C-alpha cells in the first residue's frame, strides 16, 4: 500500500479529531448529593464487634447463611450465619478486623485492633451506575440509594469491575443469577423504618440519618477532645436515644467525604483508613472521567462521522491507486 506523506497526515488529522476527547481529560461536572440523601455513619471506635448488624441484615433481607463445612463441623452446628470471610452473594455487610502485634488495645495502630464494617458505600457519583449498560443499577434521585433492578440486569457484571470498593457480588451458584449489594434496606425505609444494621447497633457505631447531618455529626466528633465523654446518638439521628462513650483520637478526616466524588456511607476511625482496607481514591470518580471522554467523543456524532469519513477516504484512495497500478 502506497500512501504519500500528504495523505498520511490527512488520515491522522481525522483520527485526532475523532479522539480529541482523550486529550481533554477534564471530568464532567461533579454530581451533587441529592437533597434528601440518606446515609450511614459508621464509627469504628464505637464498634464492639458484636455482629448484631450482620444478624439483622440477614434477617430483614431474607438472606441465607453461608456454608462453611469445616467451621460447621468444628462447632457441630449447621447453617452458620457469619461463616463467610467477606462480602458475597449471601452477605451484604461484614465486620472485619484489623490486627497488629499483640492486638491488646482497641483502636491502636500498633499492638492494637480495630473493627471495620464493609458494605456498599452508596457513592454520590457511582461507577457501577455509570458502567451498567442497561440501567439495572440506578441512583435514587431522592434518597440517593444505589439500587438494583433484577428485571433489567443482563448479568454482564460490569458493575463488579467498575466498583472501586469491590462491593457488588454475583450469584455464580444460581441458574438465574442476580447482582447482590446493600440497598440500605430501602424496603424498610419505604415503611418508615431505618436500615436493619443501624436499628440494632447497640453503641451507635452504625448511625442512620440525612447525609448532610451525618457529616456535621462526624465533624463534631473529630473536633471533640479525646478522652472526654460524648453522647453518641444510637440507631438514627432522630431516634433521640444516646449512649455515652469516651471520645477516641479520631483520624481528622471523614472517609467518604471526597473519595471517588463522595459517598453516602461515611466512616470514622482512630486507625489509619488504609489499615482498614479503605483505599486512597481520587476525588474524581472514574465514572466522571470516562463519561466525559465518551460524551465528548460522541458529541452530536460528529467525531465518529469524521473518523469514518477519513477512513473511507483513505480506503478509497488506496483502492484507486491499486486499480491504476
Amino acid at each position: 500500500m502506497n500512501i504519500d506523506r500528504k495523505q498520511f497526515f490527512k488520515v491522522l488529522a481525522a483520527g485526532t479529531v475523532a479522539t480529541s476527547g482523550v486529550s481533554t481529560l477534564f471530568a464532567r461536572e461533579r454530581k451533587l448529593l441529592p437533597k434528601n440523601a440518606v446515609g450511614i455513619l459508621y464509627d469504628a471506635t464505637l464498634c464492639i464487634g458484636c455482629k448484631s448488624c450482620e444478624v439483622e441484615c440477614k434477617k430483614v433481607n431474607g438472606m441465607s447463611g453461608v456454608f462453611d463445612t469445616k467451621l460447621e463441623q468444628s462447632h457441630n452446628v449447621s447453617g452458620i450465619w457469619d461463616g463467610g470471610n467477606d462480602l458475597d452473594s449471601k452477605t451484604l455487610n461484614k465486620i472485619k478486623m484489623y490486627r497488629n502485634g499483640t492486638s491488646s488495645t482497641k483502636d491502636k495502630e500498633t499492638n492494637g485492633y480495630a473493627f471495620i464494617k464493609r458494605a456498599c458505600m452508596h457513592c454520590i457519583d457511582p461507577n457501577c451506575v455509570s458502567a451498567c449498560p442497561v440501567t439495572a443499577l440506578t441512583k435514587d434521585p431522592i434518597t440517593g440509594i444505589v439500587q438494583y433492578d433484577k428485571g433489567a440486569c443482563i448479568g454482564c457484571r460490569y458493575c463488579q469491575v467498575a466498583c472501586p470498593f469491590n462491593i457488588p457480588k454475583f450469584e455464580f451458584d444460581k441458574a438465574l443469577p442476580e447482582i447482590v449489594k446493600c440497598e440500605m434496606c430501602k424496603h424498610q425505609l419505604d415503611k418508615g423504618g431505618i436500615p436493619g444494621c443501624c436499628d440494632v447497633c447497640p453503641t451507635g457505631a452504625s448511625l442512620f440519618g440525612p447525609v448532610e447531618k451525618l457529616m456535621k455529626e462526624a465533624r463534631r466528633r473529630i473536633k471533640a477532645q479525646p478522652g472526654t465523654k460524648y453522647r453518641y446518638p444510637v440507631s438514627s439521628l432522630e431516634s433521640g436515644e444516646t449512649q455515652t462513650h469516651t471520645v477516641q483520637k479520631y483520624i481528622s478526616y471523614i472517609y467518604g467525604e471526597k473519595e471517588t466524588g463522595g459517598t453516602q456511607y461515611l466512616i470514622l476511625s482512630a486507625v489509619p483508613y488504609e489499615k482498614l482496607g479503605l483505599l486512597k481514591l481520587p476525588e474524581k470518580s472514574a465514572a466522571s472521567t470516562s463519561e466525559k471522554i465518551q460524551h465528548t467523543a460522541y458529541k452530536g456524532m460528529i467525531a465518529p462521522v469524521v473518523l469514518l469519513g477519513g477512513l473511507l477516504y483513505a480506503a478509497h484512495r488506496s483502492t484507486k491507486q491499486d486499480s491504476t497500478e
Partner: protein
Amino acid sequence: MIKSKDKNGSQIDKHYTEQLKERGISRSDFIKFCSVAVATMSMPLSFAAKVAKSITDPARPPVIWLHFQECTGCTETLLRATHPTVDNLVLDMISLDYSETLCAAAGHQVEDALHKSVKANKGKFILVVEGSVPLAEDGIYCKIGGKSALDIIKEIGPQAAATVSIGSCASWGGVQSTYPNPTQATGIGDVYKMNNIKTPVINLPGCPPSPYNLLSTVLYYLTLKKLPKLDKLGRPKFAYSTLVHENCERRPHFDAGRFAEKYGDENHRQGHCLYKIGCKGPETYANCPSINFCDVNTWPVSVGHPCFGCAEQGVGFAKPLHEQADVKLVTPPAGFPNINEEKPGGVTIGAAAVAGVVAGAAITASVATAKKIGETEA
C-alpha cells in the same frame, strides 16, 4: 501423733479428723472442700492432698484482720460461703488472732491481743486488710482505739509477712474513693508506696470479692510458702486474669448480637446478653462467671443484672450503671475475618511464576529427552 492415710493418699492428723467429726464434717467432705479450693487456684487435683496437709498442719501462720473504711461486706461474704462450718474451720485453722467482727473479746482486751500477736509473730503473720485508709486531715475520718487507720497500718504493715487487701476498698479505695473523695480514701497498696513499706500486697478487689479467692490465696501461701503470681495491679492471676465477659454464660448471645433491650423484655427473659443495658463485664477482670457466688451457682449476671464492674478501678462506682462498657479485649469464640482475606483457590502472582518456571523446565526437559531418544534411535 497418729497419722491416718485416707483414700486420696493424704495424711490427715488424727486429732484434726476428730475435730472435723465433732463439727459434723466427714473426711470426704473435707477433701472435697480442698479439691474445690485447688480448682479455684487452677492447680492439678493432686494438690488437694497437699492443701489438706497444710490446713491440718499444727504450725499455722497467724492472720490478723484489720477493718478500716468499709462495710464489713467482705467478712460477711466469707462467713456466708456455703459450708460455713468448713469456712469457720479454716478460719480457725489459720489462727485468726484479731478480727473486730469475729473476736469475742472487746476493748482493751482485744487491742492487747492484737499487739501481742504482732509482737510474737513479727514477719510471719498474714495481714488481711478490709477497707481503705483515709488520708485527708491526718486520717481523722477513721479511728480505732484512738489511733487513725493510717497510724495503725504504718505500725503493723511493715511487720507482716504479706498483706492481703480484701475488697475493692482496700485494693484501690472502693466506693468512698470516687469523686470527689472527701476523705481521700486510698487503697493499702498506695498507702504502702507513699510510706515506703515494702511488705508485698495481694489485691483481691470486688464488692465483695468471692470468698474463695481469699481462701485460695491463703491456702496457696500455706501450701507453697510463697505468694501466688500477681498481675501488674497486684491481683492473683488465677482469679483476675480474664475479663468477666470471657467466661460469661451469656457470651454466645453477645457474639451473635442478641441483646436485652430493657429489664423484663422478651430478650431479657430469654437470657440474652446484658451489654446494652450497661453490663461492665467486657471491662472488668474477675472470675465471677467461673466460680459464681455462694455455691448456689448464681452471680449477678445469671440472675439478670448487668455486671457493674465492682472489682475494676474506674469502672465500679465510677461509671454510671447503665452506661455501656468499653470492650477491652475481643477473645475467641468471636472470630472475625481479616481486612484482606485470601480467597480460597486463588493463585498468587508468585505461585503462578513458580508454576510457570516449573512447567517451562518440564517442557524443555521433555523436548531435550525426545530429541535425545530420536538421536539414539537414528
